[in-house]
């Protein structure tokens, strides 16, 4: 496969699989424009899939909705993310009682930004990634690229799809900074006001469906990232203690891992650390 150096770099960062592209450069060479078109404007792909809606109300039992550009992009990207990347999953239950309490205390402070459960998770993940660089990594064909900084993609649900803006250098940001920045990213994501560079370059992603009362789920990795954490709701459940049965707050988190990058134990150890950080949440403050 012939591709220019710049095309290769952009493809690696945007998660575009060069093998699936048709090069428009001399001799079929894949050039920057081909990759950017594939990554940014799914128009061509959308046109091929979109079916004009020819509907007779009351007669047809179904209707074909034309794909929005976002739906088309997701439709095009997901098989590339799921099929070629060998996924495996590890799930862990996290006791959120102390984190919950800490969050309430923090949110009672005047003049501080509101902290969400997801902000706590982002912070815990960023700190754990620094301890487990093998998870903050990407499969590059002939090498595994290990990142020194944690750029965390945060999936934001939209009415017609989802988008994953990137919180850069999360490892260097306090809870308050994470809270402010991720709220801004999410708001601009909903307003479709994100810049292109805010949508690429993540080294790890988090998808949180807790607000929809989802207990647990598993997510599809966003190549070229090596893993993604799927976060469920914090639920009040009966927990067995030495004294009997009590009520506790629990959260289920499932890590999807690219088996080419890491093995089960590595993913499990990372998840264990995320769990510990959330269960001893003062660690998130230091």
């Amino acid at each position, binding site marked *: 496969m012939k591709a*220019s*150096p*710049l*095309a290769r*770099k*952009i493809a690696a*960062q945007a998660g575009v699989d060069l093998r699936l592209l048709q090069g428009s450069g*001399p001799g079929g060479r894949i*050039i*920057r424009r081909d990759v950017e078109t594939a990554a940014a404007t799914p128009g061509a792909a959308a046109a091929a899939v979109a079916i004009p809606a020819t509907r007779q109300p009351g007669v047809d039992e179904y209707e074909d909705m034309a794909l929005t550009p976002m739906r088309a992009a997701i439709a095009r990207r997901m098989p590339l993310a799921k099929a070629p990347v060998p996924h495996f999953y590890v799930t862990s239950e996290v006791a959120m009682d102390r984190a919950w309490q800490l969050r309430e205390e923090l949110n009672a402070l005047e003049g501080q930004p509101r902290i969400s459960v997801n902000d706590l998770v982002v912070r815990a993940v960023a700190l754990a990634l620094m301890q487990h660089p093998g998870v903050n990594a990407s499969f590059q064909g002939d090498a595994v690229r290990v990142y020194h900084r944690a750029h965390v993609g945060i999936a934001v649900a939209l009415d017609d799809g989802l988008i994953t803006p990137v919180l850069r250098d999360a490892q260097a940001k306090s809870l308050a900074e994470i809270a402010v920045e991720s709220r801004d990213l999410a708001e601009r994501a909903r307003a479709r006001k994100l*810049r292109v*560079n805010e949508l*690429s*370059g993540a080294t790890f992603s988090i998808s949180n469906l807790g607000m929809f009362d989802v207990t647990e789920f598993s997510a599809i990795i966003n190549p070229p990232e090596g893993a993604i954490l799927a976060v469920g709701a914090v639920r009040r459940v009966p927990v067995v203690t030495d004294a009997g049965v009590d009520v506790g707050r629990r959260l289920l988190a499932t890590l999807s891992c690219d088996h080419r990058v890491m093995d089960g134990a590595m993913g499990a150890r990372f998840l264990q650390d995320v769990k510990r950080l959330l269960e001893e949440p003062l660690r998130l403050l230091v």
Partner: protein
Amino acid sequence: MATQSFDLVVVGTGPGGYVAAIRAAQLGLSVATVEDDRPGGVCLNWGCIPTKALLRNAEVLHLVNRAEDFGIRVSGAEADYAAAVKRSRTVADRMAKGVEFLFRKNKITLFSGRGRLVSPTAVEVAGATGTERLEARAVIIATGSTPKSLPGVTIDEVKVISSNGAVRNETRLRSIIVIGAGAVGVEFADVFAEYGAEVTMLEALPRVVPIEDDEVSAQLARSLSRRKIAIKTGVKVGAVKPGSGDLTAEVVLMAVGRAARTDGLGLDALGVTLERGFVKVSPRMETSVKGLYAIGDVAGPPLLAHKAMAEGVVAAEAIAGRDPRPLDYLNVPSCTYCRPQIASIGLTEARARQNGREISIGKFPFTASGKAVALGETDGFVKVVADKATGEIVGVHIIGPEATEIIHEFAVGRTLEATVEEIVHTIHAHPTLSEAALEATLAAIGQAIHI
């Protein structure tokens, strides 16, 4: 009136026209060209080539004047300006003859006279011996450009001259005011100053060579000031008249830009769309009228000979039914041949930032280049603007010795979509001026060795 038929008629034989004609002939088309001046156009006769010859004279004189620096004592040196102009004419004639030779070699018929389009596929040539009608499948307009003036200022080519007068002038000037500090103004200022004229350069914009990177403008202003060229930027010229004024000089050179040459071509009648006075063209160089093409200066900026030639190839190949690769106008090097030379490609730092790109800058001064020090030409630097995330070579700005030769490494790099990585992994011979290109690129990724 005699009528002759060809596959292609090209009006104008500057670098755009003659290259288009030759490429079309190579592809098997029968080609006629029409020229009302000399083959080779402005570039070979009155522009690029004769000015480069004059600038070479200025450079030789500069070396003679500073021969002491090299321990060489020269006495009785005399600079004969008329001889310099004569030499530049000889050079221009030789190159123009070369075009005639290439026409013969490629069996291209040259018609002398003024061409006018009577239809999108027919040109009437009013020559010395009568009028001829040329018919063709396709016509290329390659009529170039002419100097502009300021409102109310008439160019008489005696006291108020354009580049046309400047390149022909044979007397050594005592003083000259150059209006406009773009490439043409700066190059003539260089020549006249070296030959002893008192030169004042006026520029309406806040800096000299205003299309170049800010830092290049600042360096050029320093270098020219050191050569006693007076520079006044951000000034508006009110009027130019005989007698006294705020500034006086023997001659005023108008170098405020050029306008497309479309007068008397009959474009209006054909309904050819213009845009800001230039002929509007598609990426295949076709005008709004099917079968009618335009290339070079007449088809809009940048007004550069190499851009005209590249467009000539595109037009010829499109007409011959090929699928030419359109020009990437961001990848046209821009060069000014004054001392120190200037060359650039891609975006300036300011433009790249305006576009919201995260960039890194690498700069390497020629004072740190062994070759430049050995040459005794250390003014200037190489500046690389790179994309932080991808390493894309976003722009390169060079001012210094042989800048116009060094730039092509980056032109090739950009064409191949190389990144800073490929440049820094390219071994550059030592000692060369091109090492500064390597070092500036290394600096852009924080790895410069020699600074």
